[in-house]
């Protein structure tokens, strides 16, 4: 029918016009949506970049601050590049990117919560290879070895860790000084201190997960490092020992016992009921003496302790079993950044990543103004601006030293595979309520490990000397 009609000149011209319109449509659309770099002198980059920035609060002031910190300095350096910063609520930001990518859309940068989250994106071919850029920029010499390792998926560097943290023991220094308490250095001294604190009407640890139900995972990671030790965790993640090993069951059981004895927040129900502001306030006003958490707490602590006119300090997590080394820093990656392999402006996206990992002053500014955390790059404490809280510098210097000495440990949300992480989040609180035994928990954790191993989704494993 079509062929017949095409023989008619009028019909033919219409069909040619229609075919031409259909053929031109993608080009026209591409013209509307693609961010092709304008004609520029060689060596310069230009065009538009779309950056979906996950934020806790997307109010105008926070967005403006974010723009000042993460866009303006870059645009000043690359005046031909425009960064379209689109704020996204933290909750569900990765899911939005996931949906957009599945629909063939998505921003130029893909941020994930860590290597475990980045793996499926890499397997789907969404993440561009950053290896050549890393080699050109010599990142191997400046970044921590573990950070580079964590970004390599299927042999390619595709996800750059953008922040890192560790788990430590914070304590209310004012309260400790008042009572003459010493920071615990092992299980015995911790037990004795907890008893003294309870006698004085002080809860040993402030804690609560009413605002973030996954918070119990922080405690679990701490106990795994403090009782089983980083060496055992490494060996389990390498498949050399099972997660059903007694060292893990003992670690989990000790955590459960401590919770049920009221060490954390005063009791299990109280722990489930306590919100973040209540948790910080109790710690700052001396109702609780210690706090096990990560480096990300530094700014919140300053706010609450400032209000209560008291002082806080930190110490490494005390080892709680014989043979477990001290001064270990369990390493946590707070997030990764990748370039969307389908980005229409890879040169500009690479320029942005390059800027991010080279403009260290801008990062210190971000740390100071918006409470961001450092990049996993070796640094000289002498270069840290004086305005940065010395306790912050001290903590990050300790992580830096531990990283270079490989005296590091593992946290579940960074080093465990997706099935294990999902199982932990889903079930860790059932340990505390007594609905799940430590043995069954570890058995299921081992099964989840086998599932992750079979699917090849265990994050790259960095080495540790903390044995």
């Amino acid at each position, binding site marked *: 029918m079509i062929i017949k009609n095409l023989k008619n000149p009028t019909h033919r011209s219409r069909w040619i016009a229609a075919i031409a319109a259909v053929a031109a449509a993608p080009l026209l659309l591409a013209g509307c949506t693609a961010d092709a770099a304008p004609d520029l002198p060689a060596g310069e980059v230009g065009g538009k970049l779309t950056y979906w920035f996950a934020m806790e609060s997307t109010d105008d002031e926070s967005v403006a601050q974010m723009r000042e910190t993460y866009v303006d300095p870059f645009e000043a350096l690359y005046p031909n590049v425009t960064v379209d910063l689109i704020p996204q609520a933290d909750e*569900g930001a*990765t*899911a939005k990117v*996931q949906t957009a*990518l*599945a629909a063939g859309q998505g921003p130029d940068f893909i941020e994930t919560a860590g290597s475990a989250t980045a793996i*499926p*994106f890499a*397997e*789907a071919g*969404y993440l561009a290879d950053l290896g050549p850029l890393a080699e050109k920029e010599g990142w191997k010499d400046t970044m921590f070895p573990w950070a580079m390792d964590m970004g390599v998926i299927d042999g390619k560097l595709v996800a750059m860790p953008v922040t890192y943290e560790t788990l430590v023991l914070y304590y209310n220094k004012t309260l400790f000084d008042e009572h003459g308490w010493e920071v615990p250095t092992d299980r015995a001294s911790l037990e004795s201190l907890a008893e003294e604190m309870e006698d004085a009407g002080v809860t040993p640890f402030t804690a609560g*997960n*009413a605002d973030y*139900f996954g918070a119990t995972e922080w405690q679990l990671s701490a106990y795994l490092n403090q009782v089983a030790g980083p060496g055992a965790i490494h060996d389990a993640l390498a498949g050399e020992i099972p997660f059903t090993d007694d060292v893990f069951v003992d670690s989990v059981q000790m955590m459960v016992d401590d919770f049920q004895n009221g060490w954390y927040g005063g009791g299990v*129900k*109280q*722990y*489930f*009921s306590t919100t973040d502001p*209540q948790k910080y306030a109790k710690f700052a006003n001396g109702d609780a003496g210690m706090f096990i958490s990560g480096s990300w707490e530094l700014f919140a602590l300053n706010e609450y302790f400032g209000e209560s006119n008291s002082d806080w300090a930190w110490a490494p997590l005390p080892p709680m079993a014989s043979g477990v080394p001290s001064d270990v820093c369990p390493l946590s990656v707070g997030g990764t950044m990748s370039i969307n392999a389908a980005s229409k402006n890879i040169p500009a996206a690479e320029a942005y990543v390059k800027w991010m990992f080279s403009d260290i002053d801008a990062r210190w500014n971000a740390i100071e103004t918006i409470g961001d955390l450092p990049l996993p790059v070796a640094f000289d404490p002498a270069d840290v601006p004086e305005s940065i809280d010395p306790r912050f510098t001290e903590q990050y210097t300790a992580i830096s030293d531990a990283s270079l000495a490989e005296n590091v440990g593992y946290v579940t949300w960074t080093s465990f595979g*997706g*099935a294990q992480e*999902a199982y932990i*989040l*889903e079930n860790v*609180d*059932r340990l*505390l*309520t007594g*609905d799940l035994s430590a043995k069954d928990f570890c058995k299921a954790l081992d099964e989840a490990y086998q599932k992750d191993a079979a699917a090849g989704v265990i994050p790259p494993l960095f080495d540790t000397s903390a044995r």
Partner: protein
Amino acid sequence: MTQLLASASVESAAPGAVPTAPRRGRLRRRGRLIAIAFVLPALAVNLLVIGGPTVSSIIYSFTDWNGITAPEFVGLDNWVRLLGDDTFWNALGHNFIYLLIFLTAPMAMGLVGAFMLSRIRRGAALFRVLFFIPYLLVSVINAQIWRNLLDPELGIASVLRGMGIHWLDDVYFFADKDLALYSVAFVDNWHFWGFLVVLFLAAMQGIDASQYEAARIDGANAWQEFRHVVLPGIRPTLTFALTIIAIGALLVYDYPFILTAGGPAGSSDVASLLVNRTAFVSREAGYASTIALALSLLGGVFLIFFNILRRREEEN
């Protein structure tokens, strides 16, 4: 289409038809076509936003899709897993408890509230607004109000403690695994029951006034009036309320999410939260589709049941 053709042929062949019959048939056909044309845009949108995702969910429910990489067909594995998944049955069980709570407390409160309001002559509008206000508040705000009120350290318990009353000292409404689900349902009920009051009141006002008068002349008291006049008179509305409650209880998400996130330890978990976690935390979008589909099937069963109920009412 077949019907259109059949009716046209019957009309044209009818020996006793009036002369304007063919014209009338044409007009009727045209009228139907116009009606179809009006329906088509909505139908197309529905097909796009409901039909498309439904079909893809059905397909994905038979795959191991993680939401990112290419899915692989796994047959009935997800469905077999669902049958033995304690987390799913725990969540679904909570949906049914929610359903039971909502079929009783807010229904009873709504009926009583509406009946009492229907008997008030002065200030009825004011009470109607007061009852309806919680329904107009955003769920996040409602939830936060109650979270603060029931907080053991800041809320009612703290005020009572200040007065030397220690009834609520160790009551953790959202943190006790034996109370969390009921506390969440309570807050949701507080927000919802005003809507039922307004709904039932409107239905009650539609009852013929002569029926009330007849009942009063026969010496019926308030309870008898409620039982023999009001309840039969608002049956279609009751069936409608039951339907939206049943579907709502099956799909409930916002209040459990805001107040407890399904915790502590899954004690207030519901199926919609589980679908979300399975898809975006566990990254098992295929299995999440299976759970979602199972919920939809269950919702379909509810709809069929209530539709039968509604038809019986209409027949009666």
